[in-house]
């Protein structure tokens, strides 16, 4: 890990150099890979192991099954409507249902994340 850290530090843009405006991009990637060695300065000297990155990682982890179900379910009910067959088995036409569901759901997710981050 020290090798990766050394490599990242070598790539760090100089704040006053040609690539200075890309420093936030580098910083985002560096803090993705490493929790900084920042220590407590005020107040409590020790802190809980949890931080927002880990919290949000678990939020995403918890939402993934919901997303997958939502994609498949959208596809299933689309084909129920299209074929008119109310008794269409849930686990038939799996590939078609996934493709259709993904084409419907993923653009919504991408637009909402894009607007939220923007």
């Amino acid at each position, binding site marked *: 890990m020290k090798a990766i850290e050394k490599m990242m530090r070598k790539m760090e843009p100089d704040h006053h150099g040609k690539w200075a405006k890309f420093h936030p991009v580098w910083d985002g990637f560096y803090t993705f*890979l*490493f929790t900084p*060695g920042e*220590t*407590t300065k005020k107040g*409590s000297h020790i802190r*809980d192991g*949890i931080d927002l990155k*880990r*919290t949000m990682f678990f939020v995403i982890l918890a939402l993934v099954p919901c997303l997958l179900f939502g994609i498949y379910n959208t596809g299933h009910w689309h084909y129920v409507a299209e074929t008119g067959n109310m008794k269409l088995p849930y686990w038939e036409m799996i590939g078609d249902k996934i493709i259709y569901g993904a084409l419907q759901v993923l653009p919504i997710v991408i637009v909402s994340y894009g607007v939220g981050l923007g």
Partner: protein
Amino acid sequence: MSKTISIRKGLDIKLLGEAEKVKSAVDFADNFIIKTTDFHGLTPKLTVKIGDKVKAGSVIFFDKNRESIKFTSPVSGEITDIVRGEKRKILSINIKATAETTYEDFGVKDPSKMSGDEVKAHMLGSGVWPFVKMRPIDIIANPADKPKAIFISAFDSSPLAPDYDYVLHGENANFQAGITALSKLAKVHLTVNGSTAPDATFANAKDCQINKITGKHPAGNVGTQIHHIDPINKGEFVWTVNAQDVAIIGRLFLTGKLDASRMIALTGSEVKAPKYYKMTIGSPVKKLLAGNINEGNNRIISGNVLTGDKIDADGNIGFYHNQVTVIPEGSEPKFMMTKGWMEPGFGKFSINRSYFSWMMPGKKYRMDTNLNGEIRNFVVTGEMEKVFPFDIYPMQLIKSVMYKDLDLMEKLGIYEVAPEDFALCEFVCTSKIDIQDVIRQGLDDVYKECM
């Protein structure tokens, strides 16, 4: 009427390095320091200069705004340095102590036969008044105030805190004299740990109401006890005194001397042999730590890991502190998969269930000073309420302090709290906000504008 309280919220942080119940001696060291920064809000005015000889109990400075409050030397010796900071603000007074301590004679007094004013005058003149702090605001008490009660906690539930049942065992006479003296000023509430049988020093205390409290930390904090026994409303004052300081006050009345010695617990995962040591207020820690801490980058804390102050290896113990804690610094970057935010987390302590510490409640941890994240805005709700046993909304109060809404701060209970009450909230905060500092700012704003 004795009260028994049980608190359900809180958190016991189990750390390695608890002090063994053994009293040990430390080699004499002569460079004592009294830091004026230990007394929040104080403007000191010196009565000594470099080169002056003092005895234990001699006045060295007083509060410019309340001249009756005197601060006295804990040892006899010579004033060697007066350290000043920006704008010549006095930061500390350094005293080179003599091997044998000589004391000012304040006269042996029986507090049971004294009036409240006599007790107060005796305490003010001998330098023990700074042991008395007030709520709200959590600064040295104003002698002119009439408090509704004085609260003493007979135990400390902070991580690795000294055991007062062990420390004050056999100090019955001194402790009782201190209680009797304080009872002349206001009603005294002594709160003991309800989960264990308290030492006879506390169980047999008279001239006070003995209450019991059970629960996790911060059950031992005097603020928690005040909130559940006799909450503070606007316009009311309570005073608080640490249990060991009550014994020092009692010793003053019974012997006529200011013997400012305490049992200090040397604790922490980086201490090879954590024990108790008898030391005087302002003692240097160099000889205490020599050969007794692990090599490496360590943080030495005067006090406990939640509320203490960072000191150097050649620093001195703070005025109000009863322990020294040594833990590793956590200044190495941590790779996300092995020790960072994506790690499985078997060795880390957290209140959050994304780690596994909740499955091992008895395990003790070697925690370092890494922030474990970066400062962010408040995002997660509900985590502070789990460790804050007050009938107060902690996040809303912190936010009202941040945007300086004094009316809202008053309504949300700023008069009841002190920074130490928020230490656990600061510990668990996912956004790594310096909450104790925020609360301190809020209390200063309220003191300036509303009192």
